[in-house]
């Protein structure tokens, strides 16, 4: 009986804390990167390709370190989608191909949303 009560007393707060922490962190990452990508897009629209390239380079370097941590609780397919579109964005900027750039930018926004979609406590996810 004591063992069972102890197992609940340890497991329940642990899962709850883990769930809340992972949800908060994924939301934070998603929001931060969406803002950063918007900045890259604005620079590109304003014709500041060098500035956009510079910002994107920093974003990719940061993402590569954060991705490893996200792999602990986010399915790899979701983080891989972000990496692929970040690279696509980089190619678009390097070629100066704005249609390719905006295509990947839109897809990247969607991929960033997917990072936290599964974790969101919504009726849709539960059902």
């Amino acid at each position, binding site marked *: *009986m004591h063992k*069972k009560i102890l197992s*609940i007393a340890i497991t329940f707060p642990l*899962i709850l804390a883990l769930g809340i922490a992972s949800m908060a962190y994924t939301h934070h990452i998603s929001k931060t990167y969406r803002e950063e990508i918007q900045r890259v897009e604005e620079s590109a629209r304003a014709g500041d390709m060098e500035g956009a390239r510079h910002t994107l380079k920093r974003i990719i370097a940061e993402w590569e370190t954060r991705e490893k941590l996200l792999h602990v*609780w*986010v*399915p*790899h397919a979701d983080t891989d989608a972000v990496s692929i579109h970040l690279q696509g964005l980089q190619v678009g900027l390097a070629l100066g191909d704005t249609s390719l750039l905006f295509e990947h930018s839109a897809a990247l926004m969607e991929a960033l949303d997917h990072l936290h979609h599964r974790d969101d406590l919504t009726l849709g996810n539960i059902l």
Partner: protein
Amino acid sequence: MITVLVRATILFFMAVLMMRIMGKRQISQLQPYELVIAIMIAELAATPMEDISLPLLYGIVPMLTLMMLHSALSIASLKSQRLRALISGTPSILIKKGVVQEDELRRNCFDLNDLLEEVRAGGIENPADVCTAILETSGKMSVFPHAQKRPLSPEDMGLSVSYEGIPLTLVLDGDIQHQNLTVGGLDVNWLNKTLEGLGFHGPAEVFLASLDTQGMLFAQGRGNKPRMKIARVLNAEKVGW
């Protein structure tokens, strides 16, 4: 591939730990909710084991959740009879005073062949000898014969028998079972001397040695044609376990 090995190892031990925490019951003795949890744990461990793109936590967190639910249901079942009946069901009396209860059979989707099979499994050949048969919540059948048909016991004969407890295993495959020696209030020196007295040169030569509550030591040596020795080594009054 090494990742799969590590993940499989972690998930295996996690699943074993979950089952250990759940208790020592065998599959056939599981309550319905325990069986559901056991099947789900196996499935939950298998999915992230083979798909390395899924985080390990996708297997571990649901397993922990199931363990938690199991603990909660077990505690609730202990605390409330009504809840226990709701979760685990109630035993059904299929044979009462020797009469097969047709309604109960139908309610439990049990046909007569199933019933007779369980009666035979209970060690009774003739269904007419059965007084009571209860279908337990675990799905196991308990069968009791009429008082006239049950095996004779010492009490029926008016005999008094001495205490008969569990024999202590003192040597297992050459290894001394120190914990059992302590339980019996014995020590290694006593064991060595006793075994020497029986012709063994130490516990390493002994495959199995057990001491019963009558003070009789049974020792079997190693090999295809082992030495078998049975001797009284303690007075029954000295047995304290």
